[in-house]
């Protein structure tokens, strides 16, 4: 970790000296040949580098999907790592083109921080994790506990509200990254680790003995996590919005990375044909190639594939689809039509 004050200062200076990219993000990205994605510093299953330095994960796959749509190449990405605290400044200072980083859509981020949000790629809520040995079975029993939280997140605000409204006290142990929080939690600096439930599952999966820890039943907030871009570039906003929608629509229509070629040539469904660029000119209207969505599905897969591959029940993270099932299966994932 670098000296954060210098980080923050440098970013502020960037706002002062550089001229922030305004319209034309698409042209910039295409000229550069690489898509810069703001991602986290590392959360198992969501965004993490392997030994070779290649990034993987649920959020990273959406970054790759964006690169596939814009550049035709899911590998043409650069991960710009950010802590909870630096992510928006990095985006606003033009260091990243788009943010895919466990980020909750809130009023103040949309209106105050001036971000553009483009839908929800993971419906989440804040939970609590404690060691089993503590014998706690409900968050209501946490009065007086020490709680590890990540700074610059919605987590710390929800926590303050939750304890305040339940008349409980706690010691806030404020930490910068998920990894440091994990270390402090395991060392016993805090009794409880609280963050998005998905993040808890991801963090728990990295423990030597995951079964020694339980996630408490209370979910104390709504955390709709989704991608963000800067204000002022409508074309780019549209692209990110429809990249996400394309993955969901593909799942709704049964288009997968395995059958996408077949579907493009032989589907009878006009919406599938429009989506895959076999009919109409939606790609051109976005400023992209006709096969932009085809490239996404072919290389990264549809929403369900991305989910199951990275964080699904058959991975160490083991998350059920839950709220993130398609609306037709009782979940909330629902794409506006490609029409």
């Amino acid at each position, binding site marked *: 970790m670098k000296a954060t004050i210098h980080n923050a200062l440098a970013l502020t200076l960037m706002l002062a000296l550089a001229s922030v990219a305004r319209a034309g993000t698409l042209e910039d990205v295409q000229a550069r040949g690489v898509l810069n994605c703001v991602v986290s510093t590392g959360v198992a299953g969501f965004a993490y580098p392997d030994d070779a330095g290649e990034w993987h994960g649920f959020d990273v796959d959406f970054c790759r999907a964006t690169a596939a749509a814009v550049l035709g190449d899911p590998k043409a990405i650069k991960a710009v790592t950010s802590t909870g605290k630096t992510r928006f400044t990095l985006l*606003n200072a033009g260091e990243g083109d788009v943010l895919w980083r466990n980020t909750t859509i809130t009023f103040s981020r949309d209106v105050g921080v*001036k971000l553009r949000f483009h839908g929800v790629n993971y419906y989440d809520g804040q939970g609590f994790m404690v060691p089993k040995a503590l014998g706690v079975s409900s968050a209501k029993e946490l009065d007086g*506990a020490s709680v590890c939280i990540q700074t610059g997140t919605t987590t*710390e605000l929800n926590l*303050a*509200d939750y304890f*305040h409204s339940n008349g409980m006290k706690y010691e806030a142990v404020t930490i910068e990254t998920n990894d440091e929080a994990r270390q402090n939690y395991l*060392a016993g600096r805090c009794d409880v680790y609280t963050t998005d439930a998905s993040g808890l599952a991801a963090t728990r999966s990295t423990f030597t003995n995951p079964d020694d820890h339980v996630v408490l039943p209370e979910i104390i907030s709504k955390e709709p996590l989704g991608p963000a871009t800067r*204000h*002022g570039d409508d074309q780019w906003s549209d692209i990110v919005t429809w990249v996400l929608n394309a993955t969901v629509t593909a799942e709704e229509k049964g288009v997968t990375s395995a059958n996408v070629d077949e579907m493009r040539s032989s589907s009878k469904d006009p919406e599938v044909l429009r989506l895959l660029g076999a009919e109409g000119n939606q790609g051109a209207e976005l400023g992209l190639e006709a096969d932009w969505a085809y490239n996404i599905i072919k290389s990264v897969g549809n929403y369900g594939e991305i989910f199951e591959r990275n964080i699904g029940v058959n991975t160490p993270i083991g998350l059920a689809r839950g709220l993130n099932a398609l609306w037709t299966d009782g979940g909330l994932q629902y794409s506006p039509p490609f029409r």
Partner: protein
Amino acid sequence: MAAVPIEDRGLLARLWGNQETRSVIVQIATMAIVFALLALVLRNVAINLEAIGKEFSFDFLTAPAAYDITFSPFIDYTSRDTHFTAAAVGILNTLLVAVCGIAAASVLGVTMGILRLSRNWLVNRIVYVFLEFTRNVPVLLHILLVHGIVVTTLPPPRRAIDLGGTAFVSNRGFFAPSPVFEEGSGIVAAVFVIAVVAALAFRRWAKRVQVETGKIYSVFWICTAIIGGATAVAFLALGAPLSWDLPALKGFNFQGGLALRPEFLALWLALSYYTACFIAEIVRAGILAVSHGQTEAAYALGLRPNRNLQLVVLPQALRIIVPPLVSQYLNLTKNSSLAIAIGYMDIVATIGGISLMQTGKEMETMLIVLGVYLVFSLLISAFMNWFNRSIRYKER
């Protein structure tokens, strides 16, 4: 080039030819460039903020901060207080660790500097190795190291090390009894102040006697006796108006008493011993710079080594030590911004961290942070300049 007589050249060339006016012109030009750059930066800020649709305003300072700061020893802060109050908490926390750090670093630094000159080979080497190791590892690592040691090697609260049932050591911090002042303790405090004044008066008187007659009183012990004795008598006479709030394990944590949390402890200790190592070298250099003849002269007059150090060497060394000491104090203060690495809630972590993030006011919050550090630095410099002047050679 053929020499043209000065009076035949143009006005500008003539002004340029004059060394004094030339330097004025250069200065004006430099200022113009600086201001032009500044204007450019400000314009850029305005344009960039406008481009992302943000306005420059400090209004957010009056909105509720909505986050908790557990470590707030001076202000009773809750998440319902404003960003402004949160900033104040951060400023006081920065100030606390800076003041404690400067005090500890000075004591430790002077001690190590003197030990470094010790004729005892072992002592000398041990200090030397410690200094070299410490100075060559970045201070951030020291902070993380101390924090890591406290958090991972000490036992959790339930198995805390019990020091006689009154104080406890755990990985959540050190807990000690805190004094509770009861009725009448104000009088004791007043007696204490009066005793201090009396002791100071005695010291002046003793000094005059020494100058006039050569008689030396053991000022230190007598002063201690005056202050300690008077306060103790008042304390007992008023029926010991003081009780202790003992820390006790309640639920997850110790409640009550005085708590030294791992974050404060780690930051304070690491900044102190790291800076102390630099101070030690400054002190050593300062002492070595005092000519050995001074020491020989003092010995010839019959002064003992301790007195020599105290009366002859240190006062002269101090004049050499103080100026570089200032920059060490400034470094310590600025290094305290590394607090966030371990979650100590200083000015950078509060207004420059959480508030920045929650409101998206990068420019405004960073300006506040910069301003605060600037003021701290100027204050330290001003104080040290004053101190430096007060220890200058006085012409008699």
